[in-house]
């Protein structure tokens, strides 16, 4: 059973979202997702300043096993990306909710986050897979 922190929101496509204040949200992929993918070897991130819309494929998590698109869970502007992942993509495996974060979005509408799944909802969506 993988770890699904209660204080985060989730997309059914396995991204997690953490509010950082001022309408900024940090995004990564869940422990369950990294476990499915296995050892990460490359992470392709969006550019700071990119305007993204909910559901856009904006990053790629590539493991030894497979390449997987990462989708924007909310609309807004990319205000930061995790450059550590360039040299150390394995952080996504070892600390998916911490040092393995991928990018930060300044939300166009912070209330959009309310539409995402909570921890129980995400657990239920995994169980259905």
């Amino acid at each position, binding site marked *: 059973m993988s770890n699904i922190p209660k204080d985060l929101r989730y997309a059914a496509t396995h991204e997690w979202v953490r509010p950082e204040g001022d309408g900024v949200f940090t995004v990564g992929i869940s422990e369950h997702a990294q476990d499915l993918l*296995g*050892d990460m*070897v*490359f992470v*392709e991130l969006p550019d700071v300043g990119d305007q993204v819309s909910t559901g856009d494929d904006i990053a*790629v998590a*590539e493991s*030894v*096993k*497979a*390449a997987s698109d990462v989708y924007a869970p909310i609309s807004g502007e990319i205000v930061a990306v995790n450059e550590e992942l360039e040299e150390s993509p*394995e952080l996504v*495996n070892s600390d998916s909710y911490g040092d393995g974060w991928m990018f930060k979005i300044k939300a166009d509408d912070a209330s959009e986050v309310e539409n995402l799944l909570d921890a129980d909802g995400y657990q239920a969506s995994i169980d259905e897979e």
Partner: protein
Amino acid sequence: MSSKTGLHAKHLEAGAKMVDFFGWDMPISYGSQIEEHHAVRQDAGMFDVSHMTIVDATGSQAKDYLRYLLANDVAKLKDKGKALYSGMLNEEGGVVDDLIVYHFDDTNYRLVVNSATREKDMNWLLAKAEGFDVTITERSEFAMIAVQGPNAKEKAATLFSEAQKEAVAGMKPFFGVQAEDLFIATTGYTGEAGYEIMVPEARAQQFWQGLLDAGVKPCGLGARDTLRLEAGMNLYGQDMDESVSPLAANMGWTITWEPADRDFVGRKALEAQREQGTDKLVGLVMTDKGVLRAGQKIRTEKGEGVITSGTFSPTLGHAIAMARVPAGTENQVEVEMRKKWVTVDVVKPSFVRNGKSVL
């Protein structure tokens, strides 16, 4: 209901992630497959390969039978214990399976064939045995453990009796010897030194534990695949199958054409293929970001091709692949990756040996 090897409980005990591998419940990794890969390149790792099929071929015509069955020629095997890699072909010159055959004497051989093709292989071996004085016996009472890496032999030897140590002393690559209860062979699927050891199933868990205690890291199918691909070794079902000529699968070196009057299954078709020319299997290297994957399409000046196996090479730090391309393909080809065409380099299909790049 899936099959379990005699070591299944040890995999669960170690927290391995298990997957279905052609009906066998096998470990894909015990944590990080990249760490397992590095353990084999730099120290010592071990794989449960008990799912592979061990078959003895014995009888007064065992040698004649194998000279008919296999594209490589067991008559080349003079020394006791010497092993040979060969394709087993169908009449159309496609590969039924690839295997290793050990020669004990002209009436006594041991074959190791793939697990995914077990039933097909057993039927094939029995069908082709008709008319020969040979007995085909599956030896399912053995577990098999591959111990591989620069320190593998030394660590494995800590579990050997004096007689077993003596039996393997100075043993060259690609030999096998029965020493007391173990069959110990200097073979493998990683490009490193080491042993493949057949151990009676009743003793398998104890032996595996002994290797763990000696500091040998357990490795799963994930690392096994990246290691064999770096070493440029084919995977049956992926790099070749019944529809593919060994000439188009970098297995030309395993075909013994002389003497010309040796009739082996598929010989006529193979001669015609040689005459007409075939595609070839090459290596690909891409140092840019991204990973080459099986199934990706290839464009060359001579026509189209396809990647048969691709991965990220943990040793080299970039993507490598094997690809089937038209004859005459050289230097560079284009690969379709995630809707883009990317130019990559063509190399011989061998990337890493004994821990080092051979590019």
